[in-house]
């Protein structure tokens, strides 16, 4: 968040501040909680995973001489008898962004120690995530029903099915893990673990609302990845 205050050190903004932070003792990321720094580095690593997936997808799609199915048609859904392109995907995007927004507010209220608000917003985020996973399951079953398999598909290049199931599956796994943690954290917020500083489950560290921000980072990252999947998989 905003610049923390640190005893004995005047924090400067911008690149000058960066040079001083880097050359100072004790910490490089001034005022950043260990867990938050860890989540950021983990997300960086995870970014590389998703980048490798998407790069492989690009290479696979680009180098096949067989025609690639048109996602706009494949993912169309009948609404009142009219096929609407990418309808479900649009709704999924809407849901995920909604949950991202509630998460951002949950973090804000967490820092303000507004236990009730924070808890309800985390819960709302969890429900949003759950809806997303549900719709993804629906989309998968629809495609499987139409004969799309990881090893083949009736619309064109076989790699379409492979990459689709692998990449959305990997993203869906991330969402599912996120949902589980969101429910756990919602419980922990309501139970007041972050107000009382109750020690966590895996760790010997005391509970603190910064954990909501850490969870928030993860959840926004899941949303971020979806932005790229949406652009490259459904719009390309």
């Amino acid at each position, binding site marked *: *968040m*905003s*610049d*923390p*205050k640190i005893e004995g050190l005047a*924090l400067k*903004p*911008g*690149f000058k*501040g*960066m040079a001083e*932070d880097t050359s100072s003792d004790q910490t490089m*990321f*001034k*005022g*950043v*909680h260990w867990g938050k*720094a860890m989540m*950021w580095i983990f997300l*960086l690593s995870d*970014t*590389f995973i998703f*980048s490798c997936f998407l*790069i492989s997808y*690009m*290479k696979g799609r*680009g*180098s096949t*001489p067989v025609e690639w199915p048109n996602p*706009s048609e494949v993912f169309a859904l009948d609404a009142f008898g009219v096929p609407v*392109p*990418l309808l479900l995907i*649009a709704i999924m*995007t*809407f849901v995920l*962004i909604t949950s*991202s*927004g509630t*998460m*951002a507010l949950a973090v*804000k209220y967490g*820092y303000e120690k507004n236990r009730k608000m924070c808890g309800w917003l985390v819960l709302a985020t969890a429900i949003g995530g759950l809806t997303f996973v549900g719709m993804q399951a629906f989309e998968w079953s629809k495609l499987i029903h139409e004969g799309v398999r990881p090893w083949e598909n009736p619309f064109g290049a076989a790699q379409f099915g492979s990459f689709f199931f692998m990449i959305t599956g990997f993203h869906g796994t991330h969402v599912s893990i996120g949902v589980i943690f969101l429910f756990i954290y919602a419980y922990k917020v309501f139970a007041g673990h972050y107000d009382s*500083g109750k020690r966590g489950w895996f760790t010997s560290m*005391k509970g*603190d*609302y*910064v954990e909501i*921000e850490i969870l*928030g*980072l993860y959840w*926004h*990252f899941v*949303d*971020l990845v979806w*932005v*790229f999947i*949406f*652009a490259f998989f459904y*719009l*390309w």
Partner: protein
Amino acid sequence: MSETDKQDQTTTHKIGIYLWIWGLLFVLSFFSYMVDWYQFQGMLRWSLILFFMFLKAGLIMAFFMHLFWERYALVNVLLWPMTAIACFIFLMVAEYQYTLFTRLFYFFVGG
């Protein structure tokens, strides 16, 4: 100085900014959906897709993930490694074009 005391010093941001960004994300998503709806093709489609994508990604990272308010030390550590990915993407574009070329030339076109 315990963890909790320290957190008291952290300022939070006005709710307005979050709502603004939230709204913007909806609007941008709607626009990128419209790219498909109106079936833009070619370079126009690509530039629009990428433009909306990076704008959305940037907004999420900058405001929802608070990167805009973080100190440069953290921001730079997170963004510089992306050059390796950029290099990977760039080279793989060249690679898939080459692969596609040999496939088309030797297996379909010939001569």
